[in-house]
């Protein structure tokens, strides 16, 4: 028993490694459970938010009946799905039909092994982190294809074929964009244009290493070699929407043409597995984008600390290596303030509830939800908690911004036609990604301006040749 407690405590003494890297099975398990729970809550919240935000974009109310402002709607939905009859088509391939949702869910959840929520807040840190994420998330297309085939029905088959063609096409551009970001980890200069520092050093594929490289260079990769990083980020941001089969690239499940695409024949629990996988895949690719280009767990302006500040018992943090500036203090208060703001929103909505006796339970429920949020917010102000959740908060906030973008796209853009989709993937994103990749490599070796100039001249010559060849 004592040895067990020692084993559990031994990880707490180490300061700068993830539980996986420390080889501590207990804490790795705890992290896995935490990530899994957090992910499930995020999917539930996303379900509600998507309906509400989409509804408000279309000047509707969205779910209002189940719970105050429809807050309990996702839970009601989950219950409905669990109780629903699980139908398997008569001529379906039983084993493959059964396996397909499992493949999709496994692929979508396994990638979170390497997602870095903070310098030590990841399940493990792999040397091949980003490669692992891309590889495992590319396995989900297998599940979609087998789901469509095993249903033995026309619409799912069409959806599966569309989705495999689409996902393979966009993976190419996505991979090239990722490579140009990885390249930036090896170009060790400081600031926007990589001034002062070796031309090329060893880079890294590890997710934590990529964020640390951004910290050392003092720039998020989205701004590095401006506008190269921005263009690569844009390519990834488009490709990741196509990878997750979301609007405006949701052709595999285009409801006006294919009923529901590859999961037409699925119902009940199996369908909810597809739903879960889709949303957690969205979170996974968003966290790749956040890690590679938006500085991962780093707060905005991580290089500015402001004047040194001392408030007894509150600031600076207990960890002597932590920064002590006034700006650090202000940003450390953000998590708590966010939750207090959400709580204030709940209280305001509760006060605006109709004053009818029938609405009493709803009003009390909303106020209670607000009180719970306020309690969480207050806990986040306690110094030891505050110092530990800062990283996680900034990472989740950035991912949440991407999730909002997903909903926004869905509310804004009409669906692409399939030939347009292929054109965007192969004729626009892929060449652009190639050019960005080459110019980034050139910028690391000969400097940004020379590389851009050469690329421009080369582009002019090539367009000239192309024009001549066409005449």
């Amino acid at each position, binding site marked *: 028993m004592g040895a067990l407690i020692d084993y559990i405590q031994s990880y707490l003494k180490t300061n700068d490694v993830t539980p996986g890297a*420390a*080889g501590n099975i207990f804490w790795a398990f705890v992290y896995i459970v935490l990530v899994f729970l957090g992910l499930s809550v995020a999917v539930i919240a996303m379900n509600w938010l998507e309906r509400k935000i989409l509804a408000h974009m279309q000047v509707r109310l969205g779910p209002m009946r189940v719970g105050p402002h429809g807050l309990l709607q996702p839970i009601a939905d989950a219950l409905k799905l669990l109780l629903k009859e699980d139908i398997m088509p008569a001529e379906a*391939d039983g*084993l*493959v039909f059964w*396996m397909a949702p499992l493949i999709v869910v496994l692929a979508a959840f396994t990638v979170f092994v390497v997602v870095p929520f903070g310098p030590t807040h990841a399940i493990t840190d*792999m*040397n*091949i982190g980003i*490669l*692992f994420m*891309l*590889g*495992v998330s*590319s*396995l989900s*297309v*297998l599940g979609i*294809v*087998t789901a469509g*085939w095993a249903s033995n029905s026309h619409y799912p*088959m069409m959806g*599966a*074929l569309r989705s*495999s*063609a689409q*996902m*393979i096409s966009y*993976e190419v551009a996505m991979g090239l964009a990722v490579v140009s970001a990885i390249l930036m980890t090896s170009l060790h200069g400081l600031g926007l244009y990589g001034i002062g520092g070796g031309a090329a050093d*060893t880079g890294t*594929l590890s997710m934590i290493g990529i964020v640390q490289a951004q910290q050392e260079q003092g720039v998020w990769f989205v701004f590095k070699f401006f506008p190269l990083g921005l263009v690569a980020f844009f390519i990834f941001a488009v490709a990741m929407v196509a990878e997750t089969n979301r609007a405006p690239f949701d052709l595999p499940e285009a409801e006006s043409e294919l009923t529901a695409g590859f999961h037409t024949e699925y119902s009940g629990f199996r369908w909810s597995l597809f739903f879960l996988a889709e949303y957690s895949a969205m979170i996974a690719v968003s966290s790749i984008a956040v890690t590679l280009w938006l500085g991962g767990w780093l707060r905005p302006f991580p290089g500015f600390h402001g004047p040194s500040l001392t408030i007894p018992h509150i600031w600076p943090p207990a960890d002597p290596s932590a920064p002590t500036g006034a700006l650090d203090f202000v940003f450390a208060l953000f998590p708590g303030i966010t939750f207090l703001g959400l709580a204030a929103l709940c209280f305001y909505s509760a006060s605006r509830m109709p004053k009818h006796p029938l609405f009493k339970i709803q009003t009390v429920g909303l106020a209670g939800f607000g009180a719970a949020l306020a309690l969480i917010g207050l806990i986040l102000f306690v110094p030891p908690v505050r110092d530990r959740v800062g990283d996680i908060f900034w990472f989740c906030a950035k991912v949440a911004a991407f999730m909002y973008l997903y909903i926004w796209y869905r509310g804004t853009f009409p669906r692409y036609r399939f030939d347009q989709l292929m054109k965007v993937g192969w004729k626009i994103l892929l060449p652009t990604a190639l050019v960005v990749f080459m110019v980034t490599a050139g910028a690391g070796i000969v400097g940004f301006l020379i590389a851009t100039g050469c690329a421009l001249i080369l582009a002019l010559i090539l367009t000239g040749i192309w024009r001549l060849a066409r005449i």
Partner: protein
Amino acid sequence: MTPVATPFFFYLLAGIMIIGGVLVITRKNAVHSALALISTLLAQAGLYLMLYAPFVAGVQIILYAGGIMVLFLFVIMLINLERSIRERQFNKQWLIGIVAAAALGGLFIAVYTKGKTLFPAGRATYAESQNTQGVASLLYDPHTGIYMFSFEIASLLLLVAIIGAVVMAKKRI
């Protein structure tokens, strides 16, 4: 950190690979064969991990399990499965079969009996954290990059195959 490369995992992964390989050739349904092949390839990626070669394992998953096998499935779904199920699955080639089996069996026995002198004993000690960099320096380093030429030749071979496919698929270029 205790090593994970224990015999248990080796036998587990090797068993999955063998079962998957047998299923690939015995299943009549081509999609089932492809899925069995995927499990074989994933188990192989696990074996690479046990050799402390995470980079090779990752590339194995991306290229074979994620890329090539999806294309396989894509093609298999377009062919008529009912007809292929009715077709005879195995040819009777007893003589060649026996010769090939004997040769392979002899090789296995030779490796089993003389393996200790052929292969170094003990565990691979390559640092896992250096695997990606190690692969890169074997390929591209001016001093230690001895495999650059063979690597480029292999990629040229693939390029030839791609151009050949385009030439054959398109009537007029």
